[in-house]
Every structure is written in C-alpha cells, then in structure tokens.
C-alpha cells in the first residue's frame, strides 16, 4: 500500500508517519498536477484536499481519501490529527476489499427495441442508421402505437401522420432495421452486451395482402377500438401495409377466407424465435390507468362517460356530436387511492380534446373541471385560446358523475366562485393518468421500486458507470408528449450506441457483493434496496449489476454481514474507527453527498470546531452500521454524529430513513445500558450547512 501525501505547494507541514514496512509513503508538492500513476488493483491512501476533487482526478482507484487540508490545517487543528487520520485510513485500507474491475464483453452488436410507437421507431431508425442491426418488436399488428390512434398532435395541431409516417419511412429505408409485429418478449437471459431474448410472434392471419378490403365487407364481427368501431379483420394505415386479424375478437366464421382464398389463414400458428442483443430498449409507450376504478365517475357503468382517447377518436370519426361536454381532470391522478403522482400530459390531452371538438362544432359548450391546470410551456397558449373560445374552466374536483333525467350530470364545486354545481352534459371525458409497464420490466428483471423507471433512468445522475444494457425511451420512462418522447428516444439511442460501440465495457463502480457461504437467504435486504437490485434467483440472493448503485444499505441490513459493499466493507470501517476514535472524541460519520461537504465548507468559511471531532466519510447514512457506532463509544468517544441528507433528499432515495430507524432503536439500547441516548445523534445536514455542523459538534462536545 502507498500513502500519497500532498503538501499543497509546500504550504502544509506534513506529519512524519510511522507506518509498517509494507506501507510506502510519498510526498508531493501538488498531487493534483503530478497525478501519480495508481495501478488498478493497488490500494492507496491519499492525504490531501477534498475527495470530491480527488475522486475525479483518480477515478476508479481503491483509495481512501484523507482531507488533511480542510479537516486539519485550514481549520487550525494540530498536525498530530493528520497523522491519526492517515493511520486510520491505512488501517481501513488494509482490511478493505478492493473494488473489482468488472468487465462485460459486448458480444452482440445488435439491439432489440420493444414497442413500435414513435419512440421505438425513432430508436430503431437512429440505431440502424449508425450500423446497428436492430430488431423492433410490436405487440399489435401495426406500428404507430398511441400516435396512430390519435387525430391530431398538439400544441402544433398537425395530423398525426405528419409526424409518424416520416419516422416509419426513415426506419424502413434502413437495411439494418427489422420490424416484427404481433411479437412480444417471453424470456430474457444474459446481461449487458450479451442478452438472449426469446420472442413469440402471434399469427397475423393474413399474407400477400393487396388491401382490397373485401374481407372487411364480409366480416360480421364489429368491435369498438378505443372509440372507433372496426371489424375483427382490419387495417391501420401505418405499417405493414396489410390487413390483420384480431384473433381475440374473430369468431373464425370463415367468411373472409371465402372472399380471399389462399391469403387468409385462420389456423396460422404462433412462432417462437430467439435473438441475441447487446442492448435492449424499452419503448412500450403509454399505458392508461384503468379509470373504471374511479367508481364515482362511472366509466363502464354510465353511457356517455369516455376516456380522452375514445372521445378523440369518436369525434374525429364523426360518430359523436354532443352539445355539452364535461372534461374531468385528474381522474384517478394525484389521488392516494389511485395514482399518487401527476402523469404530466393529461392536462394537455384534456385541452386538446376541448380544442378538437370546438374546432369542429363551435356551438358545443365545453366544461373543464380541474383542480389545477398544468399547461406547462407553450401549452399555455392553447389554454388561453380555449378560454377565449368560451370553454368554462371550473376549479374543483368533481365528486360524482350520475344520471339525471336521462342525461349525464357532473356534481362539483367551483373554488373560483365558491359554488356547488351540477352540470348537465351529453358526454363526460375522463382525463386519466398513466401507469408504468411493470410487466415488461419484470420480464427484463428490472424491479421498479418507484412508480415509473425514472429512478432507474436517473438515479445515476452522478453515476454513468453502471454496466447497463437496458434503456428506456419515451413514455415507458415517463408519460410525455410527442416532442418529449422523440427527445427521450434520441437520448436512449445515444446511450445504446455508445454502449454498442465498445468491444468491452469496464466499470469500477463499487457494488454490494454477497458471500454465499454466509447468506441464509433471509431476504431482509431485498426490500431495503432503493433500486430493486436484489432478488432471489434459484434460491440464492443475487445482486443485479445493472441496478446496484453502491449505497451500502443492504450491507448494513444483512444480519450476517453476508452482503458487503466493495470499498466500504465492515472490517475496513471497523479498523478505521478503532484507530481514529479516542477518549473524549466526537466521531462524525458523514454522508459523502451532504454533511461531509458541510465540513469542507466550515474550513473554507473559517468556522472553527474542536480538534477532537474526527470525520469519517461514508456513501450514505444508510450505510452506517450501529456496530461501528457502538465500537466508537466503546473506544471512549463521547459522542457519535451521523450526518446525512434531509428527508426525501437522500441520494439513494431512502437511506436516511433506514438510518433514522436504526438510530432510534440503537438509542433505546444505549439508554437501557445506562448511557445517554443523545450521545448518538443523526442529523440532517445540507452540503452548505457548515454552521449547522459546527453548532452540533460544539453542542455534543459540551
């Protein structure tokens, strides 16, 4: 092991270290400029300035950073403290299990895109243009997704085909792009760069079609397809340019076969195939919430109550001509009984439907009942236009839709006028929210622990090193309009492209590793992972490397220390604390994202605190082990401060709440042993709250 010390342009008087013969000490004048070579498997202690800076200069090294500049010299503490801190860091590194470099071969340069809506089409086009053989699979018989069902796109107001058809054509013109309709994934195995995906292609029932439409004329089955009626054999003018049978509705009467012999096969079998891909892009689009569960609005129970899409299609088809329409916003959204979140685009859909009908029939009276209007960006113009056109906006959440004198009525309050009202209408349109595609994600072994895979996508805000081969694009990430969907699709394409451009990816992100010899599969860790990275596979606990972010919460949860976070394993921290915590000290174990930064701020702002405050940096308060707190106290420390992010601001979602619960139970124990519970304090300290940090340690020091 080496200790690299920096004297910061000869301004720091570095301690003379007395370390064992295996530890080599090197002194630098400016470590940040010299940047000495550190071998990938070498352990080092870097005693210099802020680890936030140095981590960037020495990425992926197995280093313990000792901030002697801000924790000793700038703050005016004695140089002996620097020596102690370095000794403790050396003790930690001696017992630290190094972060293993993980290599993933990109054995397949192909990509699979799931979902043939605009997002999936755009991703396929972008990837295939760049030489990636890309397979696009679509569950239904036609490409186009939700957009193909729409009338017009807003705020621009252009027909859907203006956007969709050029996208489809661009994709189709690429020789590397293959699209398979009626196709779904059944099984996925492998990992980043090397997935094997089993596909099932369900029968289309039609081949060599010339689009004459004779089949439609004879098909006796008529069904409602989201507000528009169609036959069991049907055509959507996107791609492929041929009819398809909706086998869920088809009665197999054979009438179509009679008019089109040889081209229609009612007994076609489904086909199973397997493909390899290095990257998978999930673009499964919008999934509507089942709004019939909002019982008070009567969807499915009361005639005339419709979803936005149904309304749009019926109006566009000319089959619906109401005189009065009420559009109810947040039908099941922002509601603890249904969807607690805001789906973002439903406000715009509601506005769009109002515009759609008013454009066609200016005499229609439209009421929009909304708790809030979230017409972000340029949608505000649309909102203003509709107000000018006489749409009545009611601020309120309707309590009920009911039948009155053969008509529909909406009961609501209006917070603008403070009135209770009952509005009689011909149709009620429910602008409901959207749900994540849990089914596809679970097939891909991605556990969604939040509503949408936003956390999965964005948790790596500061961390792009995850060995990730599954990406999301468009509304599968989060509901969005067409423009946002296309932007998201291009972002996903870029991510997949930069992955597939490599022969092998190498990451040194520290992850939790499970020792199977110690793990009893007690499952306590599973639910504590903010990323759903832990699961039981073949009776063993497995950590999904595509998901683990290295927070260490599971490791501190494990009652057997079977799960350990690389670089922060319990033996290392134990030795560090044993070496560092001395009689009368305050040991401050601080989250690297928040409280730790406050200590550096304290030095920069010249806020002094006593020299007996010993600081240890951890990934998260959720990775602070009660055993280590007890060890510090047992060593004679008079207090232990755990400092982390404020509630709901945790970098790892909920690590700070885990820390809170552990602190509470630990305090009970300490009190039972005659100790003052407040010797241990968990405090929320923001990254700039140097004052708060200093006040707390001073108070603890009294």
């Amino acid at each position, binding site marked *: 092991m080496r200790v690299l010390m920096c004297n910061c342009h000869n301004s720091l008087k570095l301690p003379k270290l007395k370390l064992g013969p295996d530890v080599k000490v090197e002194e630098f004048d400016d470590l940040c400029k010299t940047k000495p070579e550190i071998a990938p498997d070498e352990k080092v202690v870097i005693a210099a300035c802020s680890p936030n800076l140095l981590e960037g200069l020495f990425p992926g090294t197995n280093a313990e950073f000792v901030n002697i500049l801000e924790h000793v010299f700038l703050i005016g503490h004695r140089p002996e403290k620097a020596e102690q801190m370095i000794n403790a860091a050396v003790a930690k590194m001696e017992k630290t299990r190094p972060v293993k470099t993980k290599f993933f071969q990109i054995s397949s340069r192909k990509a699979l895109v799931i979902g043939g809506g605009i997002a999936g089409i755009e991703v396929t086009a972008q990837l295939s243009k760049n030489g990636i053989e890309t397979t696009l699979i679509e569950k239904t018989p036609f490409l186009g997704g939700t957009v193909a069902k729409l009338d017009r796109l807003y705020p621009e107001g252009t027909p859907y085909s203006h956007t969709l058809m050029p996208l489809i054509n661009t994709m189709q013109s690429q020789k590397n792009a293959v699209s398979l309709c009626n196709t779904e994934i059944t099984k996925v195995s492998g990992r980043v760069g090397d997935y094997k995906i089993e596909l099932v292609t369900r029968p289309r029932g039609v081949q060599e079609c010339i689009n004459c439409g004779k089949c439609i004329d004879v098909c006796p089955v008529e069904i409602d397809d989201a507000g528009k009626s169609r036959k069991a054999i049907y055509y959507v003018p996107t791609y492929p340019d041929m009819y398809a049978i909706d086998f869920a509705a088809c009665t197999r009467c054979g009438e179509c076969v009679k008019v089109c012999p040889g081209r229609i096969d009612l007994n076609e079998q489904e086909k199973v195939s397997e493909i390899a891909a290095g990257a998978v892009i999930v673009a499964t689009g919008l999934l509507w919430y089942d709004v019939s569960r909002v019982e008070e609005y009567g969807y499915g129970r009361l005639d005339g109550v419709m979803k936005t899409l149904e309304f749009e299609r019926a109006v566009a088809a000319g089959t619906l001509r109401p005189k009065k329409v009420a559009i109810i916003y947040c039908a099941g959204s922002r509601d603890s009984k249904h969807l607690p979140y805001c789906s973002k685009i439903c406000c715009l859909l509601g506005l769009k439907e109002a515009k759609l009908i008013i454009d066609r029939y200016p005499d229609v009276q439209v009421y929009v009942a909304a708790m809030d209007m979230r017409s972000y960006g340029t949608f505000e113009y649309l909102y203003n236009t509709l107000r000018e056109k006489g749409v009545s906006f009611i601020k309120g959440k309707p309590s009920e839709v009911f039948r009155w004198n053969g008509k529909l009525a909406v009961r609501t309050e209006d917070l603008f006028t403070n009135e209770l009202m009952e509005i009689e209408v011909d149709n009620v349109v429910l602008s409901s929210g959207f749900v994540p595609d849990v089914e596809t994600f679970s097939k891909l072994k991605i556990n969604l622990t939040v509503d949408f895979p936003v956390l999965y996508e964005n948790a790596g805000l500061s961390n792009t090193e995850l060995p990730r081969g599954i990406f999301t694009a468009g509304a599968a990430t989060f509901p969005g309009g067409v423009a946002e969907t296309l932007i998201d699709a291009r972002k996903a394409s870029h991510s997949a492209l930069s992955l597939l451009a490599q022969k092998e990816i190498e990451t040194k992100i520290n992850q939790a590793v499970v020792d199977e010899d*110690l793990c009893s599969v007690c499952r306590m860790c599973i639910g504590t992972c903010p990323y759903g990275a832990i699961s039981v596979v073949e009776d063993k606990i497995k950590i999904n490397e595509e998901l683990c972010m290295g927070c260490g919460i599971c490791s501190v949860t494990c009652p057997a220390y079977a799960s350990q976070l690389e670089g922060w394993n319990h033996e290392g921290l134990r030795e560090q604390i044993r070496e560092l915590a001395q009689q009368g000290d305050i040991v401050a174990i601080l989250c690297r994202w928040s409280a730790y930064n406050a200590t550096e701020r304290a030095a920069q702002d010249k806020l002094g605190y006593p020299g007996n405050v010993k600081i240890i940096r951890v990934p998260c308060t959720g990775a602070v082990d009660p055993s280590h707190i007890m060890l510090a106290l047992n060593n004679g420390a008079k207090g232990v401060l755990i400092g982390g992010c404020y509630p709901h601001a945790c970098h790892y979602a909920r690590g700070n709440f885990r820390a809170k619960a552990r602190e509470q139970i630990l305090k009970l124990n300490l009190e039972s042993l005659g100790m003052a519970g407040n010797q241990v304090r968990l405090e929320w300290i923001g990254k700039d709250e140097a004052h708060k940090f200093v006040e707390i340690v001073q108070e603890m020091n009294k």
Partner: protein
Amino acid sequence: MAKPLVAFYWCASCGGCEESIVDLAEDILKVVDAVEFKLFPVAMDFKYSDVEALPDKALAVSFINGAIRTSEQKHLAELLRRKSQLVVAYGACAHLGGIPGLANVANRREIFETAYKTTPSTANPKGIYPQTVTETEFGKLTLPEIFDTVHTLDQTIEVDYYLPGCAPPPDLVMKAILAILEGKLPAKGSVLTSEKALCETCARNKTKPEKLAIKDIKRISQVIADPEKCFLAEGIICLGPATRGGCGERCINANMPCRGCFGPTREVKDMGARFMSGLASIIDVDDEAEVKKIAESIIDPIGLFYMYTLPSSLINRKQGE
C-alpha cells in the same frame, strides 16, 4: 489403550447443559465407554483437588458451561485450561454470556440490593450482604467473590471450540464428541454448527414475501402466531436471520420465534447490533415521528436483542458507576 480423560464443569449456568448430556439418551453409553470422566459435579463425586493433582494437559478435553461471574468459576476455568489439551465452551452462557449475562444491565451493588434487600419476600433489616470473608467464632468463612461484570468463557481463558445453544442439542453434542475422539476437528475457534443463519433451514423461510416490510412490531404474547408463516413477515421479532442455524428449529417448531441462543454468524461480533440494524431496515415507514413511535414500541430492547449475547457484545455492560 487408556481412555481419554474428560472434565465437564459448570459455571454460572442453570443445569440445562448437564441435562443436554442426559438427553443423549442411549448415546451416552457410547460416550461413557469411550472416555473417562475426571470432573462432573452434577453426576460424579470428584474433588477440585483431584483435578489439581493431574499433570498439566492430562485432560483430553474440558467441556465448560456457564458464564463466569465469580472468583471460583474463574479459578476453575483457569485450572481446567491448564490441565486440558482442549477446552470447549459448552452452551450459550460459556459461549456468549447467556441468560446470566443479562445481569450486566445492572452492577453488583444493584443486584445485591435487589436480591438481598428490596425484593418483597426478603427481610433483611440489618442490610447484610454476602461477604467474601466473614470472621466467626468458629473461624474464617469464605465465599467466592461475585464480579461486577459477567464474562464469557473466552474472556477468561483461551477457548478452542464452541458448542452453541441453550442447551446444545444432542446431535451437535454427539457430533462434537465424535469429532474430538477421532481428531477430526475444524479450525481452532470454530463454533461447531452451521455457518449460516437459521433462516437457511427454517421451513417458514419459504413463506416470506420477497420484500420484508413491517409497519408495526408485535410481541409473541399479544398475537396467536400463524404456525406456517415467517414471524418477521408478521411483525413478530424473530432473531433467526442473525442467529447461527443447526439447532433443529426447536423453538420455531413450537411456534416460538428464535431468540438467538446459537449466537451470531462468523463475521459478526455484536449480534444485537447487527439484528437491530436489520430490523430497523425493514421498518417500512418514511416518517420520522412514525419511525420513533415504532422503535419505542419495542419493549425491553436489551432482553430482546441481547438475550444470550450481552457479555460478548461491544458495549457489554451497563455504563457509568
């Protein structure tokens, strides 16, 4: 060939460990055939002087049960260590401190006050407490000194192996005795049972939901536990995930949650801290006040988390005074 010499001694214990030898049933005959006892206070009449008379290392093995809390126990433990080639800490009290170790929540003064003065059934108006030396007209009477802190056996003498449990189950005892007789012992310092926690073999583990998440903590006395389901999943504290297996799930099979008598797994020093960390982690509440309320609903945390392990834990006794 002469039979190996064996001692079986008790320190601060309840006699349950002696009972576990009787529980060997007919296997006990095999043991008696194979070895010669040199000390076994509960069953045979030997004197301490008989042991003192043996040459050093004359005993092949001493099984010592019970925690160490008096000067007599310490003396005997040291004596047996000197006379034995192997010392096995037998049972939870010798291994980890056990139930007598819970005395560490108080100190000697408090314990004397309670035991000899303040309990309702005690009449001691003169406030007489046990003394190590009492002068009487018949001469000097002595009693062993009671220590302020209860210790484990390995805090007192060097221990070669640990047989865990309160009391150790007969199959493990027999296995250990055979291993010693055949010289097929694992690495020194091993605990002679499974390396993994109880959940590994617990039949109820399969009934656990994938994500363990509890919103309140129940005491076993307050509910009728489902005999099939995982206790933790139901909010009843069970130390199974933190406790070494190999016990045969005797408590679980009697529909009682694990209390941890087999002690922690290999990497863990402080079993109570480890378990409370795990338990706190599965409390599925995102509200500070609510977390506090749930934590405070835990009655007797030391008795719960450290029922068998207080003397072996990091903070192993009451602080102050």
